[in-house]
């Protein structure tokens, strides 16, 4: 029905509520995305506390395809296959007015972390490269998908912090892959919902004055008047899809006998609003794939 870059609406007919709900649950909770997880703060003299700043950075949606990355588990080292590194360095000089730190200040570092780890022994390996917090084998810029599209936050105008004169924030943020179940920052949809198609049935013929009354009652103009000839008019249901089931048309004395409001049991109107990492039709396809994978896991466990 409707498809933009960020949201879409479509109809599913002939499916059951259980499956539709499964799709909705998977879209919200089990589709992986990339989001900032670890924030290494070098300097924060702003009034925003470290943890609040880290929390806000985690919620910023990042425009990158999560299918190109792997999960990072406990004992893995962060390398170019599972981490995306961002840097944020903002300073408000003394004498200049207050500045607002927006999400476009996050710069992508395709070569990995720049912060140097402190090594215990002074006579460490003879390599001249200092050890950083990530172990990037090769620069992420060489991956073909990122050559033309650098990794940036999806919306550049998200306010992350505010700085007064003389305050500075310098930090490095590592984004990893995760699913919505562990934390909502990893949910790829702003939201996803479905509703069933409403069915408005006129139990008797409604004519003339009653028809006009019915048409004027509905706030979304579901009904229409059609002319039958000989001056008689009849009410018809023109746009059942727009009906919000407000029940305004069955208020009053006898209307309940004339209009029946129901839902069609197997016609679902899905709406998916994506946060921007992936386009919504891809999200739905991935969700269906994930349900298939779950089934397959159950099957292999059984046999």
């Amino acid at each position, binding site marked *: 029905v409707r*498809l933009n870059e960020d949201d879409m609406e*479509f109809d*599913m007919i002939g499916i059951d509520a*259980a499956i539709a*709900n499964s799709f909705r649950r998977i879209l919200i909770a089990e589709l992986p995305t990339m989001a900032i997880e670890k924030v290494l703060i070098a300097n924060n003299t702003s009034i925003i506390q470290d943890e609040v700043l880290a929390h806000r950075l985690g919620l910023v949606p990042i425009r990158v395809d999560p299918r190109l990355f792997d999960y990072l588990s406990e004992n893995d080292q962060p390398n170019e296959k599972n981490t995306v590194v961002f840097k944020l360095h903002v300073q408000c000089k003394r004498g200049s007015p207050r500045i607002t730190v927006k999400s476009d200040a996050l710069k992508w570092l395709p070569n990995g972390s720049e912060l140097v780890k402190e090594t215990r022994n002074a006579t460490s390996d003879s390599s001249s490269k200092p050890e950083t917090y990530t172990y990037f084998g090769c620069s992420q810029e060489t991956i073909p998908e990122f050559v033309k599209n650098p990794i940036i936050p999806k919306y550049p105008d998200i306010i992350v912090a505010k700085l007064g004169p003389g305050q500075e924030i310098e930090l490095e943020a590592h984004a990893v892959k995760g699913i919505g179940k562990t934390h909502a920052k990893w949910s790829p949809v702003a939201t996803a919902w479905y509703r069933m198609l409403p069915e408005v049935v006129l139990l008797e013929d409604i004519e003339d004055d009653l028809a006009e009354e019915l048409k004027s009652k509905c706030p979304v103009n579901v009904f229409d008047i059609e002319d039958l000839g000989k001056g008689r008019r009849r009410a018809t249901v023109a746009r059942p899809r727009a009906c919000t089931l407000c029940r305004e048309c069955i208020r009053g004395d006898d209307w309940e006998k004339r209009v029946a409001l129901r839902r069609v049991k197997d016609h679902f109107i899905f709406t998916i609003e994506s946060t921007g990492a992936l386009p919504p039709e891809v999200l739905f396809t991935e969700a*269906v794939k994930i*349900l298939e994978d779950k089934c397959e896991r*159950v*099957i292999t466990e*059984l046999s």
Partner: protein
Amino acid sequence: MEHGSFTDNSAATFSLTDEDHTIANAVRFTLNQDPRVTFCGYSIPHPSEARVNIRVQTTGDPAREVLKDACQNLMLMCRHVRSTFDKAVEDFKASNAVKAMKIDSQDSSGDDSEESE
């Protein structure tokens, strides 16, 4: 994990770890569609623990096979949904592209193109 009796394998309870309503409800629905099944249901023993118990009772066939068939049916359904959806998205994009081209090449007082879906 399956809990049943050793003599009668037409009724059994399957305990799945790391699952929740998402898959359990879908599997229960497909099990219900199977004519060999007399009873099927699922329960979650405690919401803090990610475990689901699915109970299947059949008319003689081993419960394990019936559950496997239900999962296969669910997978087929998913595949069908996916292919239908992909095709619908393609059709929609194609018809939108055509509409955009028509609007570009018409005057400002053009009439609407006909509704295809």
